């Protein structure tokens, strides 16, 4: 029976085959992308015929063809494939990204263009590039090392903290240098929202889950940023959130779990035994005792030392006890996406929890998103993107040397004190620094934020290339912070405890109305024109109160305080209105591209007469590879020259600076009072930047080598400068439009696919950015003398970079006297031991790296893959903050506070060659000089990931794709300067501080698609 059936079948098949030879046969199959996702809308034609079809929503197709015909599969942005029809009726294909054409679309300002038609300097990062840094919950950290000319430095390693980003250097001296964030087309402010200047930085950007971000585009040049007018000068970071894709609903679950520690161990503090030795030596040096032994005997007779001695000389190791070793970080996300012809959706739920590496600090976020779009009619489309998050940060006192801050303890608290009593309870010792373990356990500093960003847009396609859209965005934030000091121990004890509650509601509305018109003039000239009106109102409502005196423990709220001390509320607002017109021309299929933009913008920060400003840009591109004489050169796939020039602005100064103002925030004798608190300047207006950008984008050898080279020159003028005033005016400075500075540099991005094959791929990429910053003009005083802006360690003066290091120059320790010496003229020659006689001098560089680079490596073999990212920064210097108290041979490190072991290298007797002079028991004043200025150059292995991609191997259990990986962040750090013991990644102020240092982590992750 069975044999018979087979025979019939064979016969039948032969007949069918015969039939198809004559009439053509039906070929069917599925087209999918590299990750196994079916691709809808792929064009399939039989080569050299008009016979064609498209794949459906599940990536399936069927087409009639003859054996020997060639099927051509094409899809925008993917490499076109050809398959010859053979005996099989099924042809499944996997399409790969086409690196040679890369016709991906790039969001540029308010418009979206094909990449080849972008005239400016932009870098687009897809979601896969944004999720490799787990050490920070906010996405800004992920940008480090991935965009040439962009530097990221975090304010603190405490989870939920902010980062400082600079794109192409410092464009302003006083006004803000932070780039503008644009989320789904709407500019919005992001940054630190902590109402306290003492406790941890708290970022509202951390309320966005990177899992929801489709891509980030960084706009660097004027042709793109001029569209953002007054806020574009510092560059623009465009964040596009994920949207639904047509097709059946797909789910993605991802999770990771990791442990974190400080990336760099940091300096070693002195031990108690060291303190005794050094204190004795100081007394001996000062002549109080005939021998060091006498001094030691005296010290051992004093109370603190004698009890320490009697207890068997235990060492209080504060550096270790304030660590939260192997701090846990975990991250979960579940998303679903799908849609049909008329509507699509994306929705997500995420949870992140991250402990800090310092006791008593952590961060938590729960967030959700729902993005959908639907065609209300044939030509009316509604899109709505909505994200909501609740974040919580357990913060602590870290932004200065707070005596109650856990991170102050290793550097300021004497190891003569023990953390614990013999019975294991906290040791409640006296002194100006209380036991941080007790404080951390019983005091409270926390921050909470609920943030909702809702963005709705109605688009009306009027036909004939005309469309109109209207967008409304709400950015609503409810912030609350709480402080509590216990009534038993520490600084709250004197007042029987204290508590504060502070809340700020932020309500930002943005309206955008946009009219687009696309038209062609003849066959070869196409135009996209756009008119836009934008209005944004930003309001802040603050309420806070503080009280003292609790009747009992365990009460934290103001209701329970016996003595209400202060109540505060305030309201601030600012507004912005703008009109924008852009014109995009593409000639001869994108061979020639021209962009024009003009923006007229008003900002409430300026006097009504100075409120409106004009910004514009011109950009052009020439796609050389589309020229006939190049298109034949087959190793050149892509070659574009681009240039742009334009004017952008900066208005990022405090509110209401243009008028002389009385503030009523003072009181006297229980009555309200007022003092003049703003000097005012009616003539204040926009700070402007003129930016020239030239570049070449290229793709060679079938796209295996691609990259770009750019040059930029940004000249900022009419700087909004806090011009120092004579203090006799009652003010220290006045904001004026004066001064000029330039930033120029080169940027190179390069990616090389060394090996490309089905089973093995190897690619190396990297970027380098340089920036040369120079102040070219500053105000003069009536005597014609330039009014430099000088601090104890920096100076702003023409001919130098902004805030270049400027301080007396250390000349070493005199081997005969043991005294530290300084060059009298600040440079060379004669020295002095009198610090006040030493002239300050330029020390070269400032705190901003002049050369930054990123390097990435990707290897995959069958399912296994390895990704590595490195970051380099150099050409800058870092100053050691707090050295007077911790790293100088005076009384602070050995009597009042605590010192570092680098002090052991000190002069003790004539002839000694030492880094530090002889110890003294005197409290020396702040003397900042070049000994504490270090070369900031460093390299860091930012991320290293090893993983396995199951692809479709798990389909049997219902998984379309799965990945597992092991990831390390900041595993290795190389620092050039041996004297720099702190982590080299400091904030852009350039001084080492007591904030939580950057973190290294090892995590395990899993992603499932089903």
């Amino acid at each position: 029976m069975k044999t018979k059936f087979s025979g019939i079948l064979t016969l039948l098949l032969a007949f069918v085959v015969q039939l198809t030879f004559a009439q053509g046969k039906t070929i069917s199959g599925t087209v999918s992308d590299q990750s196994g996702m079916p691709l809808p809308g792929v064009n399939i034609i039989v080569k050299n015929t008009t016979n064609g079809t498209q794949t459906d929503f599940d990536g399936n197709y069927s087409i009639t063809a003859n054996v020997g015909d060639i099927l051509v599969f094409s899809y925008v942005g993917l490499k076109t494939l050809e398959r010859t029809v053979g005996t099989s009726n099924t042809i499944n294909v996997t399409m790969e990204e086409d690196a040679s054409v890369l016709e991906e679309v790039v969001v540029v300002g308010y418009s979206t263009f094909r990449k080849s038609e972008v005239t400016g300097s932009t870098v687009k990062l897809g979601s896969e590039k944004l999720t490799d840094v787990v050490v920070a919950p906010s996405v800004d950290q992920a940008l480090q090392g991935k965009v040439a000319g962009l530097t990221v430095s975090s304010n603190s390693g405490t989870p939920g903290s902010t980062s400082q980003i600079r794109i192409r250097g410092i464009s302003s001296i006083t006004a803000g240098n932070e780039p503008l964030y644009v989320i789904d087309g709407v500019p919005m402010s992001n940054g630190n929202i902590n109402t306290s200047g003492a406790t941890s930085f708290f970022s509202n950007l951390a309320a966005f889950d990177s899992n929801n971000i489709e891509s980030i585009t960084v706009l660097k040049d004027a042709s793109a940023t001029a569209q953002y007018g007054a806020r574009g000068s510092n560059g623009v970071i465009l964040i596009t959130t994920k949207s639904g894709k047509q097709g059946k609903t797909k789910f993605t679950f991802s999770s990771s779990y990791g442990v974190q520690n400080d990336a760099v161990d940091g300096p070693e503090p002195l031990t108690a035994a060291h303190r005794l030795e050094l204190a004795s030596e100081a007394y001996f040096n000062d002549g109080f005792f005939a021998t060091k032994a006498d001094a030691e005997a005296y010290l051992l007779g004093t109370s603190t030392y004698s009890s320490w001695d009697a207890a068997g000389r235990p060492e209080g190791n504060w550096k270790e006890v304030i660590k939260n070793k192997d701090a846990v970080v975990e991250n979960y996300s579940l998303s679903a996406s799908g849609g049909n012809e008329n509507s699509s959706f994306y929705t997500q739920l995420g949870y992140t929890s991250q402990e800090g590496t310092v006791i008593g600090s952590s961060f938590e976020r729960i967030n959700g998103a729902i993005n959908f779009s639907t065609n209300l009619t044939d030509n009316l489309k509604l899109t709505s993107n909505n994200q909501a998050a609740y974040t919580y940060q357990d913060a602590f006192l870290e932004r200065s040397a707070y005596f109650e801050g856990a991170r102050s303890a290793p550097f300021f608290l004497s190891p003569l004190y023990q953390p614990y009593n013999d019975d294991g309870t906290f040791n409640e010792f006296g002194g100006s620094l209380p036991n941080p373990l007790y404080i951390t356990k019983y005091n409270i500093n926390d921050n909470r934020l609920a943030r909702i960003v809702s963005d709705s847009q109605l688009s009306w396609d009027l036909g004939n290339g005309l469309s109109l859209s209207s967008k409304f965005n709400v950015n609503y934030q409810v912030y609350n912070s709480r402080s509590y000091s216990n009534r038993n121990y520490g600084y709250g004890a004197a007042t029987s405890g204290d508590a504060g509650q502070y809340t700020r509601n932020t309500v930002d509305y943005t309206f955008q109305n946009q009219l687009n018109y696309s038209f062609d003039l003849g066959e070869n000239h196409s135009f996209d024109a756009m008119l836009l009106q934008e209005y944004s109102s930003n309001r802040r409502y603050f309420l806070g109160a503080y009280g003292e005196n609790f009747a009992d423990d365990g009460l934290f709220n103001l209701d329970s305080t016996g003595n209400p001390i202060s109540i505060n509320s305030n309201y601030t607002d600012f507004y912005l209105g703008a009109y924008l017109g852009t014109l995009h021309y593409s000639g001869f299929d994108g061979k020639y591209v021209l962009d024009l933009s003009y923006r007229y913008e008003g900002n409430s920060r300026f006097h009504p007469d100075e409120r409106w400003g004009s910004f514009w840009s011109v950009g052009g591109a020439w796609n050389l590879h589309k020229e006939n004489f190049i298109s034949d050169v087959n190793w050149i796939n892509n070659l574009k020259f681009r240039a742009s020039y334009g004017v952008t602005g900066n208005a990022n100064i405090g509110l209401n600076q243009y008028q002389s103002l009385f503030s009523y925030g003072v009181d006297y004798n229980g009555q309200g009072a007022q003092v003049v608190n703003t000097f005012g300047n009616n003539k204040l207006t926009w700070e402007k930047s003129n930016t020239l950008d030239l570049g070449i984008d290229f793709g060679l050898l079938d796209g295996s080598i691609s990259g770009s080279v750019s040059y930029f020159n940004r000249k900022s003028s009419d700087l909004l400068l806090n011009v120092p005033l004579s203090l006799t005016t009652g003010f220290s400075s006045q904001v004026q439009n004066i001064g000029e500075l330039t930033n120029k540099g080169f940027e190179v991005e390069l990616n090389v696919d060394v090996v490309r094959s089905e089973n093995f791929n190897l690619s190396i990429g990297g970027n380098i950015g340089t920036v040369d910053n120079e102040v070219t003009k500053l105000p003069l005083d009536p005597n014609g003398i330039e009014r430099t802006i000088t601090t104890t360690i920096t100076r702003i003066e023409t001919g130098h970079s902004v805030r270049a290091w400027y301080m007396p120059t250390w000349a070493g320790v005199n081997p005969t006297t043991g005294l530290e010496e300084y060059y009298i003229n600040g440079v060379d020659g004669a020295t002095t031991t009198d610090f006040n006689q030493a002239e300050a001098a330029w020390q070269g560089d400032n705190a901003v790296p002049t050369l930054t680079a990123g390097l990435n490596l990707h290897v995959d073999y069958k399912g296994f893959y390895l990704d590595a990212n490195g970051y380099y920064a150099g050409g800058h210097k870092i100053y050691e903050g707090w050295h007077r108290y911790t790293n100088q041979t005076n009384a602070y490190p050995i009597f009042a506070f605590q010192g570092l072991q680098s002090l052991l290298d000190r002069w003790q007797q004539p002839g000694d060659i030492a880094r530090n002079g002889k110890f003294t028991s005197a409290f020396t004043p702040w003397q900042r000089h070049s000994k504490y200025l270090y070369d900031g150059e460093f390299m860091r292995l930012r991320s290293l990931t090893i993983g396995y991609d199951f692809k479709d191997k798990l389909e049997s259990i219902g998984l379309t794709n799965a990945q597992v990986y092991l990831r390390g962040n900041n595993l290795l750090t190389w620092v050039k300067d041996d004297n720099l013991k702190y982590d080299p990644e400091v904030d852009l102020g350039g001084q080492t501080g007591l904030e939580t240092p950057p973190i290294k982590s090892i995590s395990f992750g899993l992603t499932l698609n089903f």
Partner: protein
Amino acid sequence: MNKVFKLTTIMALSILLFNSCGTDDIEPTLAQDKPVEGSITSVGNLFSILKGAHSQLTSGGYYGQAMIITNEVRSDNCFSNGYSGRYSTQAEYAYNENTGYIWDNAYQVIANANIIINQPLDGLSGDLDHGEHIQGQALGLRALGHFDLLRSFGQQHTTGGNLGVPIITEFKDESNLFPARNTVDEVKAAIYADLEAAYSMMDTSYDSKLYFSKYAAKALESRVAIYFGDWIRARDAAKEVIDSNIYTIASAGSFVSNWTIDQAPNSIFELENSASDNAGIGGLAYIYRWPTFPATGYGDVQVVDDVYAFFEAGDVRRDILGYQLEATGATPSLRNMGKYPDTVTYTDNIPLIRIEEVVLNYAEALFEINNADPEALTQLNSITSNRGATPHVSVTKQIILDERRKELMFEGFRFDDLVRTGQSIDVLGSNQNLIQTLTYPNNLFAYPVPKAEIDANSNMVQNTGY
């Protein structure tokens, strides 16, 4: 037809949308602040600014702490033990132009005082007599500010000649935004002129001890005159205060307790601190002593050991002193326990002028004018008789200075008394160890002008030695 409809719709919508934002739509709200120009319409507004200026005096950078403490730690009364690192720079005379001092604070007070002084009263609503009184008070504060600047930065006790400080008499004076230094004599003359005008404009019916007052002007004039040795002016000014009979010398029984109450009978002008408005741990109480045992907080400013023996037994002023232990078994440290005593709520008012100082000013002036004037002894003993101290039988300059030291200890007078009488000063380290002795005159007796001023104003000349 369809095309026409579409075009019309687009036109209509465009006009609607693109016409909806203008300059008025982006006008910011001034919710907490008001413009200086045009917002002063009543005498009440002037009073509000005056209160603001008083509030500025209470800041920790001025009379809330620095002005008083600095003049104590640089004298033979006190030293800094470096417990929290505060004031050791000043105590060891190790300051430089980056140290910073009251320069900015004093000129802020002067800026607000000038807004009051230069406001025409015509057209203001309210009690214009009170308005004139307020302008007198502002003149008094301006004089106080200039005097504090002069005694801190003037070159009168250095080798640096006759440089004083800039005299500022107008807020935001575009013609004087980069002032040069006036001479010591010019500043002194300006202070006297302001105080005389202040006295004549004020009316005692508006007086309060919590604000600069009519007799505060005279009392301050006597202080300034003593400082510069203008003895007749000092005598006359002090006499007017004493003869007003408004203020009474504290009795032996109330001397210590007066420091715990507000507006005591011996107080002429004091700065108000309340539970909700005070310098907190940045104030005087917290720096003079530890708030708890074992020691916590700051408590950097310790009293020199031999001060205790400076008072005779029975002198109630010795009761201001006390000993504190850092921890069990530690060496007791001598402390100011009685003046500005509140380390819990920090609500002690800060007396800036009290009658006893004026009496001592008067006695000294009388003695300097005629060292045989018996009234000098009488005035001096009006203090001792209220302190449980042995009356003096004769007067010498040293006796007067010693009496001033006992009476005014910890109140910020001692440094000025030492330098104005040309004495050397021993510099003590954190262990009360003698670091050096500074002979008179000395460049360290004047603070350096802050670097920020030098950098912003090329007309400014730095003090000699910095």
